[in-house]
């Protein structure tokens, strides 16, 4: 499995990619954006973000190139989102894994307002830097140094580094995924264990609930994580050879034993995303190039089988990995689902979502995938305005 990236993403390809509109040309005027963190490999090019507007049918259009200056990671964990968007103001943060920096992008001006660093020992070159925010603080998980840096969010999309922690999983695993809701940060370690932290003072303090998830004994290890709007449940997407998702009741302020759901045979479920109305959980099935949706009951925390897409166009030819689902709208099911496609022809998959509450469908649109002209290694996308939780 090792040489895949070298086969499918030849470095020689990178200088030949078509660059989108540069900063000097007309900027999109829409107020909703899809933001892609291009996360180009170190030393191949300075990395960038690409900001798209939406056509009336939800298709991303008008890519706008935002230079970020430093180098990206060129890949990494599927579940680790390298784009974090503020709800309170038009700011997006894009991590630069190679440089160990976080670029702040002003979405009104569509420009990089600067790159911010944590401590000198914060390194994310191997598998990127995951980002989440609660409106007050931005948390950055550095994959190489296994540190979580805390930044205070300042006006104008600026950041102020506050400090690091170096958490470790129950089985010595490193941080793989994060989600934050109010004062609670939930972390997965990729070794089968999970932990929550109190972030009321900014820098995370463990809630003392480090534990193996239920899937641990089945070799299903939580990776991606999302938290419901009311903070009642944390949902974990597992690294697994099947579609495996776990739910923990966190209403007590601590993680409780997870309930494991096997939702299908399609492999991999590391990357998950709750629909804005919390009725559907979107799950990428990376190894088969498909995406699933499971029905979620936000009252009980229970999951049930939903639907699965057909293999998305270009899988195993133009791209090889699928990650980071997000939706166009921040209401209902989100209407249109987007996923990052990683490969020599990186792009954004576009699917229409329908749901009756009992049945659902995920249908790739005719215009899908939309090319990201600035990336060959796309793993992370975000939408502004984001979901309200």
């Amino acid at each position, binding site marked *: *499995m090792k040489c895949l990236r070298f086969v*499918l993403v030849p470095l020689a390809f990178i200088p030949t990619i078509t660059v989108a509109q540069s900063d000097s040309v007309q900027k999109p005027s829409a107020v909703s954006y899809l933001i892609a963190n291009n996360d180009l490999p170190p030393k191949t090019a300075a990395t960038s973000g690409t900001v798209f507007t939406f056509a009336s049918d939800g298709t991303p259009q008008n890519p706008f190139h935002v230079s970020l200056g430093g180098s990206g990671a060129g890949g990494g964990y599927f579940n680790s989102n390298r784009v974090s968007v503020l709800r309170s103001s038009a700011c997006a943060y894009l991590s630069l894994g190679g440089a160990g920096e976080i670029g702040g992008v002003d979405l009104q001006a569509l420009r990089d307002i600067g790159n911010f660093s944590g401590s000198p020992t914060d390194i994310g070159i191997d598998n990127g830097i995951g980002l989440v925010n609660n409106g007050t603080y931005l948390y950055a998980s550095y994959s190489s140094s296994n540190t979580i840096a805390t930044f205070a969010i300042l006006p104008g999309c600026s950041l102020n580094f506050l400090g690091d922690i170096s958490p470790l999983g129950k089985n010595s*695993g490193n941080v793989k995924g994060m989600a934050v809701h109010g004062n609670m940060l939930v972390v997965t370690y990729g070794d089968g264990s999970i932990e929550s932290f109190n972030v009321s003072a900014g820098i995370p303090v463990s809630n003392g609930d480090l534990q193996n998830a239920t899937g641990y004994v*089945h*070799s299903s290890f939580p990776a991606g994580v999302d938290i419901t709007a009311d903070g009642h449940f944390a949902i974990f997407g597992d690294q697994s050879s*099947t579609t495996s998702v776990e739910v923990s009741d966190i209403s007590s302020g601590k993680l409780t034993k997870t309930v494991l759901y096997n939702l299908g045979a399609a492999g991999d479920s590391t990357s998950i995303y709750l629909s804005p109305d919390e009725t559907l959980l979107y799950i990428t099935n990376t190894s088969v190039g498909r995406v699933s949706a499971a029905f979620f009951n936000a009252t009980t925390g229970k999951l049930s089988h939903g639907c699965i897409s057909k293999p998305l166009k270009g899988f*195993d030819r133009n791209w090889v990995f699928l990650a980071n689902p997000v939706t166009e709208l921040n209401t209902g099911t989100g209407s249109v689902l987007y996923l990052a496609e990683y490969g020599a022809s990186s792009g954004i998959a576009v699917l229409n979502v329908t749901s009756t509450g009992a049945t659902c469908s995920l249908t790739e649109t005719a215009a899908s995938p939309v090319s990201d002209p600035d990336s060959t290694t796309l793993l992370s996308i975000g939408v502004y305005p984001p979901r309200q939780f």
Partner: protein
Amino acid sequence: MRSLFRFAIALQVILGALLTASAQLPQCPLRPTPGTVVQDGPSLTSQNGALSLALTLRNAADSFGYMHYCFDYLSSTGVVEAPTLRVNPGDTLTIDLTDNLHVVYPDRPNSRYPMSHMQHAVESPATDPCKSQIMNFNTTNLHFHGLNVPPVCHQDDVINTLIQPSKTPFQYQIQIPANEPPGLYWYHPHPHGFTALQVNGGAAGAIIVNGIEKMKPQVAGLAERVFVIRQQFLDPLSWIPGPYQLTLNFQPAIAPQSASPIIQMKPGEKQFWRVANASTQAFLSLAVLFGNTAQTLEVIALDGVPVTGDPMVTSIDVPPAGRAEFIVTGPASGQSATFVTNGFDTGPVGNGNASQVLADINTTAMPARTLVAAAPVLPAPPVTQRFSGLPAIKPTTTRKLYFSEAPLGTNPPVSFFITVDGQQPKLFTKDQPPAIVTKVGAVEDWTIENHTSEEHAFHMHQMHFLVLEVNGVPVQNPTMQDTFNVPFWTGHGPYPSIKVRMDFRDPNIAGTFVYHCHILDHEDAGMMAKIQVDP
């Protein structure tokens, strides 16, 4: 995705560590210079029904940064490496193995084996290696690959036998079954999580069960060559394939950087080649070329078992751990000839297996060295052959297993599974219960599917299996193998599969042992499971 830049940085770091370490460690025996004549390795032959020897496993880096793992044997002429062991059916083989490994990656995160279950618990030096719980870079053991011997400590157990560095040798003693097929087997370390590391460094040697001329008289009197193909990655811990070399009897085959190894034959001479693929993950497709023309090879045995009939082929696929024994006819005097591996497509996410020259074949008037014994004048005493009648036996049970993978990101860790259909996929751990329980006497048909986009090499410990079908198509001349390719899935259509017949009739193999993918990185990362055979 990592860049070459990052790779270069990592390489410098590891090289520095290796060279620093090597300055402090005893060296392994010098290995042959590229471009020289390939010599058969040192050979030890049983006498009066027994072969006893002492091996020391040590590690040290060479001047190029390749970390060597060597089985040292103190011969009358000095220390030699990985001797070929020649035994007869019914003989007793005794090996006193001393673990003299030194930690060489003390502070490095184990990026290749994130789930390798490393345990650094303090354990009394007096702890019985049959009961040790420590598994780390310096732990080792021995597997007698292909031999049909008991899966118990001091014999061929790789689950619970964990030998730690000590001045006290650990003794292996096995009796070669009287009905063991005559052919080529091999020995190598098998500590879960670290097998690839140690085999990558060269810790592998050939075992020959004598007597093949009794079943295949056409090899009698021929010059015999024993070739062990090994593989060495410069950075064996990295998930990046990086620079690696195939070696032929420890001589690098890296043309055009260096001249190829040289195999000498007399013009037109027939030789009996016994080739072991002791690489960590190279899928070989062996051929002999005169100019660009592939020559006919007469297949004698695969995985140590003489084949039925006398198949004539122009190439032989040999998965990692597989063996092929065949007759080669030498070129005419002065004719250009090479021993090559053709490229092998391991699938979209498989590692590259480029075609390459393994050796140049030069003609010489030199007499050949080792000769296969002459065919017996009198018929061999009747011994019921192992696996006899297997094709006609109705299986008592059928099972379906499958290979699958679960990546966490574009880079490792990747979870590697081999799962019995209907069970939960689980990464291998030494304390997990067996995935399959059966009984001595059972004959089972297994269908093994590949749900991944890369080739896997299915290997069964303790026994051989009869290959019945590939992708649902019956095999024309079924062969007994212990390791066999399971083709990769293209992403469309039914999963590729093999169907094999497992022969549990021999009470000698009662116990708990393992089956796994013999891409050793996959095995180390969890693509292994247990089977319990009740008496």
